[in-house]
């Protein structure tokens, strides 16, 4: 699981050698620790709109050191560019050039966050051009950041202000160490629903969450993070993984439910267990997934069908049961993959299933939203797990080192952090979306 | 004639003294040749470690009660002393143990001091030779607590003037159900000898047994009786028991054992070889 190269490249001798050989120089990412500062320095708020002022006030209220216009001598922990009022392409120039000198003061593990409005086909062409332009600016800037710093954006739908819990939730998530491996991405806030947690370190307090595929890898990490964030977790995995599952469940003080998610009654069993034993079902993480990689030319029905059955069809069937049960406020997060966005050689079955998840999430949003909940997906890029350990070495090394802006593979924890955020009430205004956790991998653009 | 010994004789010495005469062939004895002699010894005790070793060897519970076969062993040196007197007519080595009848009159504590009396009582004709009965009695003070008759056979020795009785017809053995099985290893004879001091060479090793014309060492008859009684004998009361030996148990070997209860509280036991279907022993225990 450990990234040997990362350990090597960050050691004293390895660092010198890596530099001389011109190899990528990955750094240890700034990850969330309870009690740590939200960002590693002052926050520069760029922008002149009313929203920019509100953002500054909010950050002050969060106890942050806030600068406007000029960073001065301060080391910057983050730059927040509020671009909600760009009307034409020319409006991007001033904020971009204001940010430019500040970038030199950005601390390792720093953050650049843009807050803008999404472009729409109903916009005037110039407005749409300016709004869409933000994405290109941000994504390119993210590629330029070093030292584990990331650049991400928040797109607030028209009419959504900073008072929307998810606007604040997304901002806190992107600034914090929880978003360590999220890079070059936009979080779209469409609704004003949701609620901010009473305790930012326990955003899932009182929630009952089900995690499928919880015995190992990303699922185990999700289970641990949801527990850390305050949830009671039902850990689900196939009976054959029961021993590892029991360990995870005991570690987090949850319950283990041995269940094949492809079973007809899997959804009902999950509802029965969660409500019967824990009194509620608030969160479902559809994490269970398998790979059966083969070039399509060599593909057989067993490999194709089993991947579709586990990764996609089981989720569809369980979701029907959840909807039928009418569980109020149920939030779901499905595991997609960058392979479902950009495709991956040897993964036609897997790519189809994961692209399918993205489609399913979008099309299920309204139904779950009607119950006061929502459904989103997280698309991990290259994550160091037992499953990715099966990828041939050359592909793996390239996936891990060369392609992402962050020059390293992510950890299961990084995926789990994004999932925990999307599962929380603070993400109540985010629905039907897919968030990539890929270190800004070129795979899938 | 009572001959009181100052101390219990040592079995090893008796066997050694008998060895030279083992080569002496006796073909015939006269019925009246048996010396009228009662051997007597006082101050016989069972050592506590001997009691424990015996009970362990028999798979019995260690408890403060002298087992009947152990009491036989306490008296046996005196009996052997009798049989090894120069004027005893039958050769000691090679005597075959045929049967025992014992009345164990009351439970005997290990700390009770015993006196032993032994006498050879009768020579009788047997189809294979001549038998002698040895009566052994154990007393606590004047009170008899244990009385036993042991029947030994001197093979090939004729009793002068008495017709040899015909050999009884032996019915083929129809084995009863096996209720226990004893697996006896090669050291069984040595271990029994170590506890009771009965180092008769026929029990000790392949070599010593061969020297006396046996194909392998054989289990002590009293070992077999002890095993049977460990299972069948009552505790805390007097009882009578008997055992008859048919064919020897060669070591190492396996004995099939049956135990069954009859009317009047009689427990019968028997042992046999399952492969050859030869009976080894049969006996019974009854309450007194």
């Amino acid at each position, binding site marked *: 699981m450990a990234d040997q190269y990362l350990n090597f490249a960050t050691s004293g001798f390895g660092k010198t050698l890596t530099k001389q050989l011109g190899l990528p120089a990955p750094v240890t990412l700034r990850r969330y620790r309870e009690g740590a500062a939200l960002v590693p320095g002052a926050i520069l708020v760029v922008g002149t709109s009313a929203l920019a002022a509100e953002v500054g006030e909010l950050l002050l209220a969060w106890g942050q050191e806030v600068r406007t216009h000029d960073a001065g001598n301060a080391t910057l922990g983050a730059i927040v560019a509020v671009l909600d009022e760009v009307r034409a392409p020319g409006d991007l120039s001033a904020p971009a050039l204001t940010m430019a000198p500040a970038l030199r003061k950005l601390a390792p593990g720093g953050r650049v966050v843009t807050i803008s409005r999404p472009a729409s086909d109903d916009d005037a062409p110039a407005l749409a051009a300016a709004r869409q332009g933000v994405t290109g600016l941000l994504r390119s800037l993210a590629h330029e950041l070093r030292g584990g710093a990331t650049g991400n954006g928040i797109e607030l739908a028209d009419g959504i202000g900073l008072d929307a819990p998810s606007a604040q939730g997304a901002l806190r998530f992107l600034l914090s160490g929880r978003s360590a491996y999220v890079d070059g991405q936009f979080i779209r806030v469409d609704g004003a629903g949701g609620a901010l947690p009473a305790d930012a370190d326990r955003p899932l307090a009182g929630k009952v969450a089900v995690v499928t595929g919880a015995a190992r890898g990303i699922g185990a990490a999700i289970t641990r993070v949801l527990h850390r964030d305050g949830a009671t977790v039902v850990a689900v995995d196939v009976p*054959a993984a029961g*021993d590892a599952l029991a360990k995870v469940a005991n570690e987090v003080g949850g319950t283990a439910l041995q269940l094949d998610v492809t079973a007809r009654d899997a959804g009902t069993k999950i509802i029965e267990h969660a409500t019967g034993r824990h009194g509620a079902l608030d969160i479902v993480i559809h994490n269970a997934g398998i790979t059966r990689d083969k070039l399509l030319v060599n593909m057989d029905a067993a490999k194709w069908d089993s991947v579709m059955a586990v990764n996609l069809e089981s989720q569809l069937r369980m979701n029907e049961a959840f909807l039928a049960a009418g569980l109020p406020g149920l939030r779901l997060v499905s595991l997609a993959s960058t392979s479902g966005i950009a495709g991956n050689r040897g993964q036609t079955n897997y790519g189809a299933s994961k692209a399918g998840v993205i489609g399913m999430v979008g099309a299920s949003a309204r139904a779950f939203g009607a119950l006061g909940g929502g459904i989103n997906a997280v698309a991990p890029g290259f994550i160091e797990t037992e499953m990715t350990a099966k990828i041939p070495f050359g592909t793996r090394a390239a996936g891990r080192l060369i392609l992402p802006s962050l020059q390293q593979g992510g950890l299961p924890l990084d995926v789990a952090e994004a999932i925990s955020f999307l599962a929380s009430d603070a993400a109540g205004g985010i629905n039907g979306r897919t968030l990539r956790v890929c270190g800004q991998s070129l795979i899938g653009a | 004639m009572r001959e009181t010994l100052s101390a219990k004789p040592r079995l090893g010495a008796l066997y050694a003294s008998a060895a030279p005469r083992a080569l002496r062939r006796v073909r015939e004895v006269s019925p009246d040749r048996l010396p009228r002699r009662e051997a007597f010894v006082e101050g016989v005790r069972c050592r506590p470690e001997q009691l424990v070793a015996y009970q362990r060897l028999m798979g019995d519970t260690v408890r403060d009660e002298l087992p009947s076969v152990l009491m036989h062993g306490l008296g046996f040196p005196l009996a052997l002393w009798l049989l090894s007197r120069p004027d005893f007519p039958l050769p000691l080595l090679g005597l075959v143990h045929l049967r025992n009848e014992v009345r164990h009159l009351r439970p005997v504590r290990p700390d009770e001091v015993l006196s032993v009396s032994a006498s050879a009582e009768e020579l009788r004709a047997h189809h294979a030779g001549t038998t002698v009965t040895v009566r052994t009695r154990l007393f606590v003070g004047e009170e008899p607590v244990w009385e036993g008759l042991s029947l030994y056979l001197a093979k090939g020795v004729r009793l002068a003037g008495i017709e040899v009785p015909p050999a009884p017809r032996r019915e083929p053995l129809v084995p009863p159900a096996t*209720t226990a099985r004893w697996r006896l290893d090669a050291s069984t004879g040595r271990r029994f000898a170590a506890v009771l001091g009965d180092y008769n060479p026929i029990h000790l090793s392949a070599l010593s047994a061969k020297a006396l014309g046996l194909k392998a060492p054989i289990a002590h008859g009293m070992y077999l009786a002890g095993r049977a009684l460990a299972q069948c004998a009552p505790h805390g009361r007097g009882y009578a028991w008997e055992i008859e030996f048919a064919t020897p148990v060669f070591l190492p070997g396996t004995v099939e054992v*049956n135990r*069954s209860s009859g009317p009047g509280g009689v427990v019968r036991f028997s042992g046999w070889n399952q492969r050859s279907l030869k009976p080894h022993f049969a006996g019974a225990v009854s309450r007194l």
Partner: protein
Amino acid sequence: MASSPSPRRAVIIGGNRLPFARANGAYVGASNQDMLTAALDGLVARFGLQGERLGAVAAGAVLKHSRDFNLSRESVLGTALDPSTPAYDVQMACATGLEAIGSLADKIKLGQIESGIGGGVDTISDAPIALSDGARAGMLALGRARSLKDRMAAVASLRPRDLAPSAPGTNEPRTGLSMGEHQALTTQRWGITREAQDELAAASHRNLAAAYDRGFFDDLLTPYRGLSKDNNLRADSTVDKLAKLKPAFGKHLGDEASMTAGNSTPLTDGASAVLLGSEAFAAEHSLPVLADFVDYELGAVDFVSGEEGLLMAPAYAVPRLLARNGLSLQDFDFYEIHEAFAGTVLSTLKAWEDPEFCSERLGLDAPLGSIDRSKLNVAGSSLAAGHPFAATGGRIVATLAKLLHEKGSGRGLISVCAAGGQGVVAILEAR
């Protein structure tokens, strides 16, 4: 006394066991403590008992190292349970698990505890090998020796043959006969045919395989060391295949020998645990209730004298249990009769049908009668699953409790025979 009503119920909440593994196979190297800990931890995970202080954990093993004198307590300390959960060891040969569970149920009914886990474990693959008696005596003497002379004497008392280790046997100490040899006598006594035994064995495999297929064990079992099913299970077992096996016990019976490796349980490694509680405990913890543990009864027979078969004690204990509970043998929806050997089950059933046995041995006016065989061991039993001695009781109780809960009503009878001529029988009722 007899008329005083039971103050409250003891309920079975659920169970967990490791897949049973044939000896010297998948679980080589795993100790009793390792396996019992794993079984307990799986149960804790299933019911979210982490950090919970239970009333007691009672478990045991038949083959036990001396270092495992506190096996249950040591296992508890290795689990996610609150370390202030007390634990005690139980040993009643193959009935260890059922006696452990029954004793906990009694404590719950009496109000002494609110919850408990009962179970057992056994491994043949990590069985204790002891010093021979001679070596032990010498070593102990050496330990007691105070002077050089005593020490020298103790060392001198050791003989080379003493150094050969002695492995524990499964032979009965008082008879020297193996359990199989004892059962062969009983099997012959009751005239149980080879065909009948093979049919029972095939049914056991068939039923266990079907139970696995329908996911019955999904919440009764936690995989261990790469095994997620009992590896003695032969789903394709048939009477024809079983008929080809050679007799393994009672060979002296010649043509009458009928007991084979196929209709006798193999030596097996495994562990099981059952969670019991008061109704209040289950309700407070939002835990399911599968069945009531109604009552149980111990029995023993005089097999040393040859008066009765070694494994026939349940035949005597069941009528006493039935009488106490005012039930007949036919008042049950499931019968779980531990398949030590196919012959054991069939001899017991035949004895209950036999007027002479029931009158003379059981003192009954009429025979107990026959049972509906379609209700017997419906999710398989020891012939298919295997029989890690002390773990079998927990397997049976959890299986029966779930069967009853699935059915939603009715009663089940458990019968477990044990070495030493003993047995434990129990009644469960659906919830």
